[in-house]
């Protein structure tokens, strides 16, 4: 798979604070790339650098196999649709008039505008003033503005911000659909839950550092869920010197590998401790995420 975005040691320092710290991003073509991180972790700053809106302090960016420079920027941006932080839109104009502004800026065809509005299902509301739009409609207009140029890459900063579950689901479906048409989508969020079901690849940012990059499956491999050993006699197990916390069903063991599990089970069996069940705690991606970002960004 060829990469649409790659960065090398991408860093941004504001006065005395490093907002983005030596990122090596790799966004393959045609995927939905979920860019995750808690508030203030540097997601928006990174995306602004990818769009050439903010100059990196150090490091490099390659988009579509071309280095991003002030000279190549305008040309590269033609094939990148984006929405950073607040969705754009002039409140005193209608949705359609806003789209016409984008059309005129980029010299687009009428059909491209109509298609973008239809894609986000705003056609029926296109003659309403944007100041009277609901938050969800404003977000969708922002996405339509990003889509109008028929981009090969879509960079969306928290497009689901402030949406209700139905609105989030709608955006999710839309982005997955776009990716299936071959468009690469990079979408940020501070809520894993929102991204979980649409992202093929995840990049997790914490304190400006990329602490994980890979598929959902790879993320799970990085974490070891707790082990539950159901036994009516936890006292006997603890007497064997096994480090565990007694819980309702028996014992809970943290951070032990498959090999260690086998060893513990063997010792319990040899000692004649009754074992009713041995299982891993079902862990949501959210737990993994909290685990990663909460632990100060260490893997």
């Amino acid at each position, binding site marked *: 798979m060829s990469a649409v975005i790659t960065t090398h040691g991408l860093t941004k320092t504001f006065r005395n604070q490093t907002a983005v710290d030596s990122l090596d991003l790799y966004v393959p073509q045609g995927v939905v790339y979920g860019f995750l991180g808690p508030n203030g972790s540097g997601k928006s700053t990174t995306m602004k650098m990818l769009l050439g809106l903010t100059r990196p302090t150090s490091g490099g960016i390659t988009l579509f196999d071309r280095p991003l420079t002030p000279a190549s920027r305008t040309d590269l941006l033609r094939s990148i649709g984006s929405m950073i932080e607040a969705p754009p839109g002039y409140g005193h104009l209608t949705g359609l008039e806003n789209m016409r502004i984008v059309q*005129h800026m980029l010299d687009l065809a009428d059909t491209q505008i109509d298609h973008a509005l239809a894609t986000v299902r705003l056609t029926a509301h296109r003659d309403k003033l944007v100041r009277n739009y609901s938050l969800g409609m404003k977000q969708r207009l922002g996405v339509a503005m990003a889509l109008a140029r028929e981009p090969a890459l879509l960079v969306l900063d928290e497009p689901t911000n402030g949406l209700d579950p139905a609105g989030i689901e709608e955006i999710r479906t839309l982005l997955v659909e776009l990716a299936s048409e071959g468009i690469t989508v990079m979408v940020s969020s501070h809520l894993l839950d929102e991204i979980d079901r649409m992202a093929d690849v995840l990049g997790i940012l914490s304190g400006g550092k990329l602490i994980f990059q890979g598929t959902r499956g790879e993320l799970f491999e990085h974490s070891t869920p707790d082990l539950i050993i159901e036994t009516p006699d936890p006292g006997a197990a603890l007497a064997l010197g096994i480090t565990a916390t007694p819980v309702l069903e028996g014992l809970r063991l943290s951070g032990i590998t498959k090999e260690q599990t086998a060893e513990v089970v063997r010792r319990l069996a040899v000692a004649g401790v009754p074992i009713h069940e041995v299982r891993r705690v079902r862990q949501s991606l959210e737990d993994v995420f909290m685990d990663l970002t909460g632990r100060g960004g260490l893997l």
Partner: protein
Amino acid sequence: MTRAVVLELRKMRRLRTGPIVVLLVLAVAALSSASQFSGGTRETFDDPTAAPWAALLLTYTMMAAMTSPLLTAVLASRQTDIEHAGAGWTLAATAGYTPGVLCRAKVVALSLVLLPAVALQSLLVIGAGTAAGIRVPLDPGPWIGYTTLLFLLDVAFLALHVWLAATVENQLVGVGIGMLGAFLAAFTLLLPSAVSRLIPWGYYAVIAHAAQDGDVVAYQSPSYAWIAGFLILVGAVYAFVTRRLDRIER
């Protein structure tokens, strides 16, 4: 650049820029000509030595000085604030229009609206004078000269206020400065021009083509060199600061 200017004209829709300008033009023309219909003034209408046209131009200068700084501040602020409110800076930047380009285009677009308005304003004042019955022939030179310079000065202040509105997000600041400017502009009409030249808004007095000396009102030639110098300075500073705006990261 042409495209950017057309974009600004498109954004102007529903900003009520047109109605605001028309309203102010009518107000200035009406206030300038109001005294023409009073008894005392009417006696001077047949008397070339009383210079009724110069007197009218002086009243007009006063009214324009009192209103233009505020008008330019309001127009510039309305046209620029929409970019803050609608995340327009970023939208434009991702389409290749930097903030500096946007600001320059805004000044051009607003000037295009102001040009016919200022011309119409002068014509209305002249029309009112004729309607009131001024019989002395009109000397067009000072009127054309004043109207041209008034327009150019308005452009300069549009530039100042667009830059201000883009840099300071709170639009009360720009409009407040415009109000202060209106006061200064009217006040400097009473000051010697050596002082007016040192105050930016004083140039609304410096461009006066008529002056009062005791009881006598007469046409006068303003100091074109100072005015040209001021306009060139504003142009150069604007070119510089809008280029700097391009490098500001939001």
